[in-house]
């Protein structure tokens, strides 16, 4: 089974001509590449408004068994987002088990003061938080500070960058057991194998970066990595299924 956790639907302001974007485009893509399930976010949540994007997402993926939604969240004091208790109820009603935050795009600091309410709830309910490295100005020191304050926060890093970043994230993987990496840009030679050998394959979840990237890259990188079949299966789906299965909503 292949479970892709890095997928975004919806119209994008910087779309390349002919770039796919819609729910139907995504269905075509996952069938072409043999992807069984996707954790999908909505571009409107990122580019326009989290609440409107979240509602749009639920409408658009309704009835598609291959899709599970991720909702965007932001501090409720300064956004359209509901207070945490109300937000949690809506998550449960809509079968949402994971969240994504966009600190840079939505103009929030990624720090303990801004996000503490949300991170405390995420820890209490085992809700994983997805965060793209593109969303931080000083990603590694910011992540270190937040995880030092919230070591049990399940943080999954998307879009690790065009160039290998091992020297930044190795110390973080060593010190924070609930930090996970998504694979869409993992391409250092032997990189996936070295991390599996050092920290365990459970630190990875599979992501493609669709629609900006073709799933062919991440699929091929993982299929040809020199790791065991069991480790590969865990990265393709086992790890994210376990993480989402442990959400207590």
């Amino acid at each position, binding site marked *: 089974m292949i479970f892709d956790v890095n997928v975004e639907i919806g119209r994008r302001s910087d779309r*390349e001509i*002919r*770039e*796919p974007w819609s729910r139907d485009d995504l269905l075509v893509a996952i069938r*072409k*590449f*043999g992807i069984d399930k996707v954790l999908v976010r909505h571009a409107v949540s990122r580019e326009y408004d989290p609440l409107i994007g979240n509602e749009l997402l639920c409408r658009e993926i309704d009835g598609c068994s291959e899709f599970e939604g991720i909702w965007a969240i932001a501090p409720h004091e300064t956004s359209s987002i509901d207070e945490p208790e109300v937000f949690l109820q809506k998550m449960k009603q809509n079968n949402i088990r994971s969240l994504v935050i966009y600190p840079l795009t939505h103009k929030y600091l990624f720090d303990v003061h801004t996000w503490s309410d949300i991170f405390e709830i995420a820890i209490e309910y085992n809700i994983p938080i997805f965060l793209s490295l593109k969303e931080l100005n000083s990603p590694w020191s910011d992540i270190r500070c937040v995880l030092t304050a919230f070591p049990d926060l399940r943080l999954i890093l998307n879009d690790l960058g*065009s*160039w*290998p970043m*091992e*020297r930044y994230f*190795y110390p973080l993987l060593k010190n924070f057991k609930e930090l996970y990496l998504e694979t869409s840009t*993992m*391409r*250092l*030679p*032997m*990189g996936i*194998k*070295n991390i599996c050998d050092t920290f365990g394959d459970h630190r990875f979840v599979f992501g493609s*970066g*669709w*629609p*900006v*990237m*073709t799933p*062919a*890259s*991440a*699929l*091929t*990188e*993982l*299929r*040809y*990595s*020199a790791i065991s079949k069991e480790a590969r299966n865990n990265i393709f789906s086992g790890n994210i299924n376990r993480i989402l299965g442990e959400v207590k909503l």
Partner: protein
Amino acid sequence: MKTKKSIRYYAEKGQPIENAFIIDFHGHIGPYRAFYNPGVSADDLLAMMDRMGIDMSVQFSNAVMSSDHVLGNKAVKEVSDLYPDRIIPFAAVNPRYPEEASNELKYYCGECGWKGIKIHPSGNNYPVNGKLYAPIWEFAAEHSRVVISHSWDEPTCNALAFDEVATNYPDVTIVLAHCIMPDFKGAVELALKHPNIYLELTAAAPLNGLIEWMTETIGVDKIIYGSDLGGWFSPGHGMGPILYADIPDDDKCKILGANAAKILKINEINRN
């Protein structure tokens, strides 16, 4: 074509691509200062190639863009001497050391018979159409050597600079690594305008739909697979988009190796 199974068949199984002769046109020997990259010895490099079914790999040194080109060429020679039928060594030179660059080319491309030259205008912070590069282009023209250059949409190596070089040296086969990323439109315009310009896909291939767009725009004969194999990236991330592209397998074979073999004048070998 080695067998009748489709290229995608092997990709989906994670097995070596047995039905295409594959040349990876972009590889780096040696460490890069910014990466933690254990386990990329010569044997590791060959193991990565075998896992994907890569027959041959063009290799040049990481040192050309970030350090000592003389040291780097020696490191490449050590590996290519170990695996002469798998590694295609290119001499990498820094134009800021004109006399040394000339000597390096005379030795490696002359005495050793290496087939090509690698330059990195961005890493050496010197424009590809600048006067210090002129002797290198002249050497390549005189000795019929292929030149692969880092190309990116930045002042030292953008479409405008390569337009001038390709015009001034029409007999030099120029391979634009990274397709002037992200100015792909500029890259394909150059490939259409200049018979001596080829486009190499390192780092660009993962962008969704790029390969299909390029093949529709310029055909397949001037598109070449490369991955930054070894010192930077593993081959799968860059090869995957070709393996799954919505183009015929014959076209994939051209991109994966036949086009490179043609410009390098290499006959297909059977590693079995």
